């Protein structure tokens, strides 16, 4: 491996890294919002919306991100909606992640024993207070390990963004290999940058898990 080649690749990888992180985290934030809303309407059995959310979850959990991106990137312009490739990436990741997050939050909500709610109600708290103070924090606590797993999974899924011509890490590696044939160096940098992106998330996830351990229901 030639250190000079690695050095010369650095600026392009750094740029791709920033773009990947930007789209990745915006997508994950969107996934969080969509997942939360979807889990609520399913958990509280809100008529009509609950069915829509159910179909949404099944549709997006059971199709690959690449296919979803193609539909958004090439399909939406056909019905007159034109959005940038970056927005497509965020939207695609958000919709895919939302379906996973929805199931994560829903199982967290369902894991809380009914008696927890009853004991809060019996202290005179209103339904809204019980939800805000007891159910929501407990459900999130239960969901921490699964949320961390989802975040790592979604950040790795960004590697298909190259298919809609976003200059992410994967795109950059393929591009450089095509230009200079320094395969070893290009792939080394790719692994390096994915590790830099994901290792901190993994560590933060473990810390979050340790923090909530001992604060879960049923102990």
């Amino acid at each position, binding site marked *: 491996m030639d250190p000079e080649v690695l050095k010369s690749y650095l600026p392009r990888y750094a740029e791709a890294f920033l773009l990947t992180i930007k789209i990745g985290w915006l997508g994950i934030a969107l996934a969080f919002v969509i997942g939360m809303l979807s889990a609520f309407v399913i958990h509280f059995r809100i008529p009509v919306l609950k069915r829509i959310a159910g179909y949404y979850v099944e549709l997006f959990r059971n199709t690959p991100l690449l296919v979803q991106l193609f539909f958004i990137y090439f399909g939406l312009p056909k019905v007159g909606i034109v959005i940038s490739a970056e927005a497509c990436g965020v939207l695609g990741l958000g919709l895919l992640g939302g379906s996973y997050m929805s199931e994560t939050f829903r199982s967290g909500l369902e894991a809380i024993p009914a008696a927890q709610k009853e004991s809060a109600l019996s*202290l*005179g*708290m209103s339904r809204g207070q019980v939800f805000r103070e007891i159910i929501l924090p407990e459900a999130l606590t239960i969901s921490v390990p699964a949320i961390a797993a989802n975040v790592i999974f979604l950040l790795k899924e960004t590697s298909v963004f190259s298919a809609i011509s976003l200059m992410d890490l994967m795109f950059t590696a393929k591009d450089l290999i095509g230009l200079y044939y320094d395969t070893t160096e290009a792939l080394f940098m790719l692994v390096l940058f994915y590790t830099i992106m994901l290792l901190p998330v993994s560590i933060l996830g473990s810390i979050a898990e340790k923090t*909530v351990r001992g604060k879960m229901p049923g102990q």
Partner: protein
Amino acid sequence: MEEILRINGISKRYDDITVLDHVSLSIKSGEVVVIVGPSGCGKSTLLRCVNSLENIQEGEILLNGESVNPGNKKPAALRQKIGMVFQSYELFPHKTVLQNLTLAPLKVKKTGRKEAEEEGLKLLERVGLLSRKDNYPSQLSGGQKQRVAIMRALMMHPEVLLLDEITAALDPEMVREVLEVVLSLAKEGRTMLIVTHELQFARAVADRMVFIDGGRIVEEGTPEEFFEHPRTERLRKFLHSFSYGE
């Protein structure tokens, strides 16, 4: 003593199963009423109805002469006056012991934080758990959790305290520490409606005993009459099932 809680011929049915069948009971201020009966007889359901956690199909429940049937009044307002402690403690796992105590006063009664914390600390000291104030529930033993749960209910200054088999989930050696707290509450004149399987304790704490079987009150009386001279065959049989080698 004046009447504080009146249960007037209430019936509770799930589809075609009758859990409570025209149950009536009157509780005076400062009185400790202990309900016993076989599993599934409806005694826990009765407590849950008093606290509006279950709706009823017939009858009426009155607290200080005011109807508290579900639908008649906001249940939250009623539940502030009726405290309840559950078999499985149900402390809030993501809050510390002290936060468990102060949550409802802060949110529901809008008590000041300082005042709520002072009262919480006083109650924790009373049950010997002051040093545990910053622990999370998962760090406590079952008996400690249940003592915290009782104090949490007291924080709302309830007029009536409902205790639903509060020692049933405890290891035998922890039962006493919880029951002693209940005895001390009885001594200071708290009105309590207690469901339990601890007959010896029931005898020690009760002003009046009630035996429920098949959703009906079969017999009620002073602890002495109840344990020494049961009038009905059903109660005799029930009491006998607790004794060995006779």
